[in-house]
């Protein structure tokens, strides 16, 4: 479908709790690194896609326009998108159709987030996702929806907290080998289980941190990609899907919207047996249970089977199907839209065999990245291959 599109370069800032750099400066640092990594200059970039959170987050009107200079978008066709936490992966899908359509040969994709600006805590910036008439008068906080979904998932499949905490242990330990990681920690299951209870069953160490950071990748058409690099990583499939906003009417134990997004991407990539045709995955893990949830939605295992796969070590870096070898959001950090694009960047490095100590032990040729957001509603999926 469309012309072939490859990722040819990637860059990112460190993820930190509070960056002194402005969003523009973070965007520039990531974009410049991505361009340098493939020897390109901004003059050669024809179009720019930017992913970043709504303006209320930063207190800056039309934040996309504010960030445009840092994202290298001055004087170019430029579009900002935001689909909640799903943005980082969606931005690549958006960049993909800019190139696959033949509209341009080189497109820069930048995702930036600076969550530290919102006072006193960025969590409150999300309160307006609850229905303003039927839910907000109950004074909800953002943790509620995750805790409700996690409890439904655990109860449906009879899971214990340790079955889920294992994901946080794996990812935070994986992040020890990531140079840009914010929360790399050699933690144990006991550490997770003994951490402060926020909204049961969600405890402090089940949750990814608040972060500032930016990530960028360069997309190229086939002919240009082959001139720029001898190791292009192809975008084999893209998919995105949105479930109903009536979230209390849905089955919270299964992310149907992720499955729909995955089916769209897999069809494009010619994948009929994801468990065997995908060798590495970076599903979205803002909470430890979400990695499991999303593995099931991505059809990398059956419903309710992800915890057992994790227990069996299949998802570890040297396992049969490494999941979040980067360290994920739980370990590297969660600057919302940038976190999703970090996953794409990780697959880019892993598929090229450049991930150093993070490199998975098996030979990997195809990977899937996925992100998720809003009222547990958005699924975005990109399949990459060499």
């Amino acid at each position: 479908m469309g012309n072939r599109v490859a990722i040819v370069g990637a860059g990112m800032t460190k993820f930190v709790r509070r960056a002194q750099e402005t969003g523009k400066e973070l965007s520039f640092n990531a974009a410049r690194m991505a361009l340098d990594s493939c020897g390109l200059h901004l003059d050669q970039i024809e179009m720019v896609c930017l992913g970043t959170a709504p303006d209320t987050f930063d207190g800056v009107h039309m934040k996309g326009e504010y960030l445009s200079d840092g994202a290298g978008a001055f004087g170019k066709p430029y579009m900002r998108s935001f689909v909640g936490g799903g943005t980082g992966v969606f931005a690549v899908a958006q960049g993909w159709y800019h190139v696959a359509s033949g509209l341009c040969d080189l497109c820069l994709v930048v995702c930036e987030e600076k969550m530290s600006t919102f006072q006193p805590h960025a969590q409150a910036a999300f309160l307006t996702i609850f229905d303003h008439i039927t839910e907000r008068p109950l004074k909800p906080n953002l943790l509620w929806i995750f805790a409700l979904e996690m409890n439904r998932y655990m109860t449906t499949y009879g899971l214990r907290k340790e079955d889920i905490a294992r994901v946080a242990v794996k990812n935070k330990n994986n992040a020890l080998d990531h140079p840009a990681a914010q929360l790399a920690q050699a933690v144990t299951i006991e550490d997770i289980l003994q951490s402060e209870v926020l909204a049961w069953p969600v405890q402090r160490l089940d949750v990814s941190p608040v972060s500032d950071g930016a990530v960028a990748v360069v997309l190229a058409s086939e002919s240009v990609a082959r001139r720029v690099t001898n190791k292009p990583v192809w975008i084999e499939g893209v998919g995105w899907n949105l479930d109903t906003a009536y979230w209390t009417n849905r089955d919270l134990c299964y992310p149907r919207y992720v499955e729909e997004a995955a089916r769209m991407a897999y069809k494009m990539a010619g994948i009929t047996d994801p468990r065997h045709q995908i060798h590495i995955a970076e599903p979205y893990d803002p909470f430890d249970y979400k990695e499991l949830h999303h593995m099931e939605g991505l059809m990398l295992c059956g419903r309710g089977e992800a915890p057992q796969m994790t227990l069996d070590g299949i998802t570890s870096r040297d396992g049969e199907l490494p999941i979040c070898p980067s360290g994920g959001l739980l370990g590297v950090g969660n600057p919302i839209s940038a976190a999703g694009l970090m996953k794409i960047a990780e697959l880019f490095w892993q598929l090229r065999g450049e991930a150093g100590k993070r490199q998975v032990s098996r030979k990997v040729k195809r990977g899937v990245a996925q992100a998720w957001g809003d009222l547990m509603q958005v699924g975005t999926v990109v399949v990459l291959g060499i």
Partner: protein
Amino acid sequence: MPKRKEPTPTVERSIAAPPYGAVASGLSDDDFHKGRVCTTHWAADARYAWDSGIAIGRYLEGLKAGRLLAVECRKCHRVMIPPRMFCELCFRPIDGWRQVKDTGIINTFSLCYVTWDVKRIKEPQIPAVIEIDGASPGMGIMHLIGGIDPKSVRIGMKVRAVWKPAAEREGAITDILYWRPF
């Protein structure tokens, strides 16, 4: 005048892998809040007032009268709550209104020990999704559980709405105080 602090890069780890040379100057809470770097503050005064719309307006009037109202679609045979003027599945107007019971089943719940800005509270709030009796299976609303020891709340429990006294109701979701297991 506090001495200006040069930004300190976060701890360098020598990991030979991309992203090579990733930077961002991490600031501590003290750097930021005690004026070691220059900051500027601003508070938005954003105020809103919403009309409640056609379907939710009628839902709220029902609550004021102590009744829980749902809508039905005769094409997909769903009885839906919260009410809506169109069936989002069939993409056609709904066919009618019906009163459903003020009882239901806990679909899922949480024991929440923090406020929206992560301040601890001692007695947990118990948010829940409650599947309403008389609506289609799985049709729930978000509300609060109360009148029970938090430790004994379970998924699958039957609950009943505890209403505000009629004179105090104002046509809001909070006209139901909470849902008590029975």
